[in-house]
């Protein structure tokens, strides 16, 4: 633990004192065997999946091995990659749109009382309106096209993300800002060194959450009104009662989302928020 290193090399009289060592007695440190717990968790999930496959007929619920083999087979075709590309493109566009709108609503609600009151009704309405109704309305008004698909995937999640961002921005520590003002820090210094670092975790968490939500919505809009993409394929194979391929396509995208989570969000978090993990 960092604090123990601190104490051992200390010349300061109170460094070794009772206060603030930050370690709770009786709290077990899972650090050393955390990877083992993750492996055990994945294996348990696979076992439960396999158990389901044994109990149910194969055309209703295929097992992990059978689905994996189907996925490997599909990976040899161009189709899977084309559909995946299409879905990823929709996710990216819908995510950008949803985040832009949510940032606008979230920030204005957090920073202005009037905006907060004004948009509150919209947000509550947006939260209660079923996504299905929003998507169908957009398809009917805009048409069965790409614009409608992106809008349909983005709009239902805006209220959820906006609330998240509003909460995050409202919880900014004003004491730190006052400190900076008292020391006569410039406006640029305050924004860069005091406000931005507090908002960054909120933005990262909202982005993470947003990508997860958008992907589920994109699948939904593809299923309802598109003739390509992973969502369409899932619907297509469902019509053919081919559950093996339904699960194989779902699994293919699950890997993509895991990759985004680990390669983008995980790396960003480690790089930007080193200070949050120092407590050890």
């Amino acid at each position, binding site marked *: 633990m*960092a*604090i123990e290193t*601190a104490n051992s*090399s*200390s*010349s*300061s*009289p*109170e*460094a070794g*004192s*009772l*206060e*603030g*060592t*930050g370690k709770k007695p009786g709290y077990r440190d899972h650090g050393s065997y955390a990877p083992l717990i993750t492996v055990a968790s994945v294996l348990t999930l696979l076992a439960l999946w396999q158990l389901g496959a044994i109990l149910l007929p194969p055309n209703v619920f295929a097992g992990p091995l059978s689905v994996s083999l189907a996925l490997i087979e599909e990976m040899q075709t161009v189709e899977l990659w084309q559909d995946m590309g299409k879905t990823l493109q929709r996710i990216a566009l819908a995510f950008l749109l949803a985040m832009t709108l949510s940032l606008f609503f979230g920030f204005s609600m957090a920073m202005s009382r009037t905006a907060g009151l004004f948009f509150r009704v919209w947000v509550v309405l947006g939260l209660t309106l079923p996504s299905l109704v929003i998507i169908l309305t957009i398809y009917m008004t805009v048409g069965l096209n790409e614009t409608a698909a992106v809008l349909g995937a983005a709009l239902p999640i805006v209220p959820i993300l906006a609330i998240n961002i509003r909460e995050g921005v409202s919880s900014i520590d004003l*004491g*730190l800002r*006052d*400190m*900076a*003002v*008292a*020391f*006569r*820090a*410039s406006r640029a*210094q305050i924004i860069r*060194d*005091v406000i931005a*670092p507090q908002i960054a975790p909120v933005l990262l968490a909202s982005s993470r959450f947003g990508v997860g939500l958008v992907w589920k919505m994109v699948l939904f809009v593809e299923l309802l009104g598109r003739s390509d993409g992973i969502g369409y394929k899932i619907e297509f194979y469902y019509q053919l009662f081919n559950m093996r391929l339904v699960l194989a396509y779902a699994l293919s995208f699950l890997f993509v989302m895991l990759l985004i989570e680990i390669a983008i969000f995980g790396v960003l978090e480690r790089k930007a*928020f080193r*200070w*949050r993990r*120092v*407590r050890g």
Partner: protein
Amino acid sequence: MASIELTNIVRDFPEAQGRGRWRAIDDVSFKVETGEIVGILGPSGCGKSTLLNIVAGLDEGYGGRCLIDGVPVSEAFEKGFRVAYVFQQSRLLPWKTVRQNIEFVLKAAGRRQSTWQERIDAILRMVELSDFADFFPAQLSGGMQQRASIARAFAIEPDILLLDEPFSALDELTARRLRQSLLEIWREFRTTILFVSHNAMESTFLGDRVMIMGQGPGGRIREKISLAHLSRPRTYDDVGLFDASREVITAMQQYVDDLK
């Protein structure tokens, strides 16, 4: 270094509910001479932190006059006077190391970058944090964080240092060590210090003078007690200090309802 002069300071705040206003500070006047340490002692809610905010230039909605070396506060900062603040909580930026936190205020104070390293090393030596310059605040104990916050304040070599109950969140042993450190550094710089506290012993230990404010709202200075007869450096077991703190407590009891 600079003097502080407050004349007929009045501060009203709008009420949380309704359209009325309530008076936090009512006609407060006093002067802190250059290099002096003066304490404002009073119960919670008497308006003592508001007074510090006025001197710091954080609160501009007051009536009366606040001068730093004869210059109104708002102009004083433009003329290059520097004020440093030590808060009850350290208010270190958690995403910056101790060194970076000090660099932040050195930059704000417009100190030349070529002098930063030397200043930081010197001040961290004084607060015994040399080994912790590259630690993040979360890696330090509460006492060490407050040491870092004191280092940050002195690093800019302020004309005025304001302390808002800086040791009240610490255990008494740690607080005692920090008060001593503060006075040791003060002896080097002779900065003008205005602090607020609700601790009679602390005020007596630190101050050249102590001013007692009555219960708020409408806080006023009720009594000014000189501690000039207590020589420095002071020690906690000094009988004179103990007697003086008793005098301060007695004075407080007259004006604070809760203590009557």
